[in-house]
């Protein structure tokens, strides 16, 4: 069983483990001047038959990436780190302003409108990649 599992993972792991996952409406908000973090927003769609667990977000253009949820408690806004994003089979999760966002920290070069950034994430243990373009928020 273990050998079979390893064989399956070696031969078709990526296709099987993260089948049906797609990233839609991906964009990065053009950051105001300063060296603060920037936010990426998108919809993760799971058209597959397996639950997807996404973690370890990365981009070579940034030193760190973390998934955060904005939470409002009694008019107090909090940012909560989300170590994992679970997308049930057949479901979608929307990352949008005022809700969840991928926080990209310490850009290695200025983040400008029109720039494209390669992002990656571990999806059920395999790597999934997608692309994000920088836009002004009111240009959506």
């Amino acid at each position, binding site marked *: 069983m273990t050998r079979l599992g390893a064989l399956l993972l070696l031969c078709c792991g990526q296709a099987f483990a993260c089948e049906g996952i797609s990233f839609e409406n991906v964009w990065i908000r053009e950051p105001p001047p*300063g060296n*603060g973090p920037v936010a990426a927003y998108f919809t993760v769609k799971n058209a597959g038959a397996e639950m997807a667990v996404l973690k370890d977000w990365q981009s070579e253009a940034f030193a760190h990436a973390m998934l955060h949820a904005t939470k409002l408690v009694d*008019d107090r806004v909090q940012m909560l780190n989300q170590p994992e994003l679970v997308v049930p089979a057949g479901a979608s999760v929307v990352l949008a302003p005022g809700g969840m966002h991928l926080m990209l920290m310490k850009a290695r070069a200025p983040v400008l409108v029109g720039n494209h950034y390669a992002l990656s994430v571990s999806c059920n243990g395999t790597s999934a990649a997608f692309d994000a373009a920088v836009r002004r928020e009111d240009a959506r």
Partner: protein
Amino acid sequence: MNDTAVSSSSKAWIALVAFVALSAGLITAVLRTADVPAIQGLLWPGPPQISPFSLTSDKGRISEETLKGRWTLLFFGFTHCPDVCPSTLATLKQVAARLAENKTFADHGQVLFISVDPARDTSAALAEYVRYFDPRFLAATGTEAELNALTGPMGVIHAQVPTGGGEYSIDHTASIFLVDPQLRVLGKFGLPHDAATISAGFTAISDFGRAHP
């Protein structure tokens, strides 16, 4: 016996006077409350009052004097806030555009962003940050004590929260406040911030405020 009767009579009078005073107070309060129109975001009766404060901007001090005689939309945040703060300032840019034809805002309105992160936000960096949204926006910050002089009486919360690796975020009050020319905090707009709602709220609250000096 006679002393006891006098004492009882005095007590009855005191109770009656207290009852009448309490009733009058209650009736006044009820009448004032009944007088309050259904305006979204209006803080009335008994709006909080801005206390004396002094903060730093790239153009000098920002204090209660900066707010006197103006209608101020006030928001608290920090530039390392990647989600709510830029979204709110983008909304305030839309609010300012929507209120361009509103004489009260056009002649006496202003938007002020207060950073609750003085360790990372210099006044020069803050000015550049807010002018990205609208060159007319003001921004200021100050020491913790200076900030608390403004935020404390308003009930505005700001607290550092470590996020690992020596980094931190700041939990903060999300509402946009509307301060009138007499330094009364007459309006409060919570999340989600919608430009149409806030613009309409500004118009209704400023009309109400002028009618209730």
